[in-house]
């Protein structure tokens, strides 16, 4: 599946400054693997040593925070937007 991935400012050094890049994969896990192949090193910024999402990063597939659905196994339909966003406090 072809998807678009929005890159947060602090990771744009990996993408030559691009705020949005093309991605590919049937699940979020696949998309992040392909992302790391295209932009080496970016995967380790999003995932921790055990392969899980880092505690202070939020990832959305479309409008949904993946922690509410299937995490890294969340399905990424064709054309969907994946957003990687640092957690911030509010309110």
């Amino acid at each position, binding site marked *: 599946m072809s998807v678009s991935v929005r890159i947060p400012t*602090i990771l744009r050094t990996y993408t030559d400054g691009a705020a949005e890049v093309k991605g590919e994969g049937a699940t979020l896990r696949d998309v992040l693997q392909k992302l790391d192949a295209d932009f080496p090193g970016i995967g380790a*910024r999003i995932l921790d040593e055990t392969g899980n999402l880092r*505690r202070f990063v939020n990832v*959305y597939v479309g409008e949904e925070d993946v922690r509410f659905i299937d995490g890294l196994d969340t399905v990424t339909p064709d054309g969907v937007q994946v957003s990687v966003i*640092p957690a*911030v*406090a*509010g309110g």
Partner: protein
Amino acid sequence: MALATAEITTSNDFGPAVALSCRECGTRYDLGPTFACIECFGPLEVAYTWNSPDFDGTAPVTREQIAAGPANIWRYRALLPVPVDVGVKPNLAPGWTKLVKVDNLARELGLRSLHVKDDSGNPTHSFKDRVVAIALEAARTFGFHTLSCSSTGNLAGAVTAAAARAGLDACVFIPADLEQPKIVMASVYGGRLVGIQGTYDEVNRFCSELIGDPLGDRWGFVNVNLRPYYAEGSKTLAYEIAEQLGWRVPDQIVIPVASGSQLTKVDKGFKELIRLGLVEDKPYKIFGAQAEGCSPVSAAYKAGRDVVQPVKPDTIAKSLAIGNPADGPYVLDIARRTGGAVEDVTDAEIVDAIRLLARTEGIFGETAGGVTVGVLRKLVDKGLLDPAAETVVLNTGDGLKTLDAVSAEARPTAVIRPSLDAFRTAVVENS
């Protein structure tokens, strides 16, 4: 991009602050408009001269110098990331709110000594004026022209008011279904108020994306790219409580938890006062308070987890309705380290507690105040809080902002003709 165009400044603009430091991995950064660690996404916080291993133990200010300062948060400017002349610039000069000894409420709850730190007395009637005042100074230093935020309501009003006073533009973002008084407060000061169709967490996500876009160029989002500075404002609650108690840290304190930032910074404030020798080194317990309809931190605490699972909020305590609290893990750490706890109360208990505080002490708190007082009562009932110890509970906002919460039961005792007979029959003989 906002992050690229803003200049890094010298530490003189930030008083005793020397760097930003990642709370997770300790990586250090120059003082700039940034908030997340490039290495691990961890939150950045302000590090000071006294955090250095070489610190000689000399406090940058004395109790007497603080006491001689203005009756607002700038009396603590030597402990904050602000320039020395911060007090002369146009700002709302918040803080130095009342610490009220509440004997009637203490009796009702079976406590020996209880105080309410009543932050409804701030310029826009919530504690948010404290944090915004620090963020405003950082925005000025970085040369931002627009002050912005994602908000559950109180922050939006604090930002638009501070921007008006400082002569900056404002553009603030709120969930569209917010309480009407908060919408009025946020819009009356001018600037742009944008309602987003979604929850606070969705508003927050939107702002995080806006900050990396040219549309948000040279904008200071007080709780995003200025968050390390903004969050320090909550330390002033700890400073004031200690000073108002006669330079003493309370034995136990109950603090509301939305993102968890305030609770972590009150803890930081107490620790700093101890490290700098401004108060005696003694243990204290910190308790977190949430609404049951948005209690991800309380749930994690009770389950013994150190990971906070996000929730979709559903509570009348909208100022605490953050389902994905960024500082939640630190709240858990602090509650466990100090011997406190995190507890939650239902919406009905929140309303009861608002009325209890109003009825016993004449303090009309907003729903977040109902949450803290309700949790205080629950902690006492459960035996988790020592009734003989000196206790402080925070009321972080004004009840006039959340009138809907109590309006269902608000009506006259009686409506009568203007006659003594009618009064005797309808009121005196009926009570």
